[in-house]
């Protein structure tokens, strides 16, 4: 189906390279048995850790940095760079989970609400009980909520958009009911530790920033170097092909949502480090921000293409753009317009450049 059409579009490497009959030889006879014993073929050694195109987003990030460095006097200095990193951690950590979900052709509109639920659970329990217990229960709340998403999507086949839209409103309301719409100031060192960190002169490298980088690396490893990662990409690419090849599609999709829940819990911890108050009505646009960061980072909304390196850069783009426009004294409404335009540009690029155009 559609193969002929694809044929026409695919860049033919060399007409002679189509399935060619090799000269019959004795090696044919031993053919399949040879699968068991690997021969040596020295040519194919080069690494391709980040095989996906992050060059576009990286270029955009550099343009933003250069532009604001030239147009403002306050953008390019160590203090502001540290600030950009700190402003990035919450959206950036959420966006890691969002990346995972978008890679399996899903979308999560509830990520921000799940994170807020985590902060409220942790904050409220910490106000009268042990901080470590509070943190642990906050993690549980996030993972359970995200796993419910995974369950209804993987098991009961609800469209991810609808399922997570429903969960978004349910969880946001549940967090308010649970907290009776109160906020909980966080005094515990454990809960707010990610907002602090070693200082180098005026520059603070927070533990939250370190955590964000570490989580990106761990997830990058999982996606690029493990069987699970290959299957995530395969499912996003073609769920039918994955299923027919014996991949348990439901289980992998569920695992993506559940693991995203762990990342949302880390994001909740990050959020308490940024602003040490658990507010049930906070971070209302965090879901859209995270999707924006993922999309700008070059991960395809169709699934199967992209990755966390792009998301890391995409987050920095979104934050640096807002930060720079603020430094330049431009109204925050224009910042939103700029971000919106950037998203449309990124998705447009995906539509036109994607799908079989990548060699």
């Amino acid at each position, binding site marked *: 189906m559609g193969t002929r059409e694809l044929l026409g579009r695919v860049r033919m490497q060399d007409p002679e*390279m189509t399935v060619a009959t090799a000269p019959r030889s004795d090696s044919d006879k031993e053919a399949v048995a040879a699968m068991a014993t690997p021969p040596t073929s020295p040519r194919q050694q080069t690494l391709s850790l980040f095989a996906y195109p992050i060059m576009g987003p990286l270029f955009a990030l550099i343009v933003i940095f250069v532009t604001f460095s030239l147009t403002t006097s306050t953008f390019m200095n160590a203090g502001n760079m540290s600030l950009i990193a700190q402003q990035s951690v919450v959206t950036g950590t959420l966006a890691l989970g969002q990346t995972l979900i978008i890679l399996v052709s899903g979308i999560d509109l509830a990520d921000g609400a799940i994170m807020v639920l985590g902060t409220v659970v942790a904050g409220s329990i910490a106000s009268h009980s042990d901080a470590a217990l509070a943190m642990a229960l906050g993690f549980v709340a996030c993972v359970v909520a995200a796993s419910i998403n995974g369950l209804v999507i993987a098991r009961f086949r609800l469209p991810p958009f609808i399922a997570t839209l429903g969960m978004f409103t349910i969880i946001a309301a549940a967090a308010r009911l649970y907290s009776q719409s109160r906020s909980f100031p966080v005094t515990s060192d454990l809960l707010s530790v990610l907002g602090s960190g070693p200082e180098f002169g005026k520059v603070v490298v927070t533990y939250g920033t370190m955590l964000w980088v570490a989580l990106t690396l761990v997830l990058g490893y999982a996606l690029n170097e493990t069987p699970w990662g290959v299957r995530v990409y395969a499912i996003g690419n073609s769920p039918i092909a994955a299923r027919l090849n014996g991949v348990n599609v439901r289980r992998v999709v569920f695992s993506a949502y559940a693991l995203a829940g762990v990342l949302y819990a880390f994001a909740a911890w990050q959020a308490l480090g940024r602003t040490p108050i658990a507010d049930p009505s906070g971070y209302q646009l965090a879901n859209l921000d995270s999707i924006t960061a993922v999309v700008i980072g070059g991960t395809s909304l169709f699934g199967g293409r992209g990755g966390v390196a792009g998301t890391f850069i995409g987050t920095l783009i979104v934050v640096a753009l807002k930060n720079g426009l603020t430094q330049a004294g431009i109204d925050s409404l224009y910042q939103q317009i700029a971000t919106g335009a950037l998203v449309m540009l990124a998705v447009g690029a995906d539509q036109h450049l994607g799908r079989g155009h990548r060699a």
Partner: protein
Amino acid sequence: MTPAFATVPSLAMQAIGLTKHYGQVVAMDGADFELARGEILAVVGDNGAGKSTLIKALAGALIPDSGQIYLDGEPVRFSSPLDARLAGVETVYQELAVATQLDIAQNMFLGREVRKPGVLGAFLWQLDKKRMRQQAAEQMHSLGVRVQSIRQTIETLSGGQRQAVAVARAAAWGRKVVMLDEPTAALGVRETHQVLDLIRRLREHGRSVVLISHSMPEVFAIADRVHIHRLGRRAAIVSPKTTVMSDVVAVITGALRSDAVVSAALAPARAPTAD
């Protein structure tokens, strides 16, 4: 149910009386099937005759309502495609089951990835990419499938090459049986010939091959025996040496009674009183 007949030792795969209903629709109506070791068996039939349903049942992609499947004479029950695979039965489906954005090696090993030995593989689940690429390259080479690089993504390949990758993968894992559902349907003349050559090579390598095809010239060029499927069951199984093409077509369409052609069946026919 205990079948009242003997299984034939030379059969790689056999099925007796498979049925499948979808509500009122009968997709399989007591379908029999037999595949001898090391043969190419063509399965032909009209659209909607239930060929794909039969193949899916044999491949574990659907579970028949009743009937029994045997592999090497042993009764088997596949509850998922993975079960069939583990038993040595591989299938190349009509909807070309390759992930286009993954490379050739990744596709060859999808669902059966190889991890590195030692701690890296056991605890960090690290893929042994080098080993998988080497084995994939070796497999492609031994079947005479030429590609520039094993690291090419499938989307950079031609239709014939894509199909070749799918067939090579099935050959690599299907120790016993390789089933191909219209592997040449989307291909041009030249590419079709190349895939047919590849299928012949599978037979040389000792595989038992099931080939669903709509192309009679193709079937008569390559098949050892022809299974004619009609109205959800096997109408006849014939040899292309003793039955002419027009008679096969006549049985497919119902113009010729199935007992009017010379049967090439190896297993004894079921007693009509069975069930």
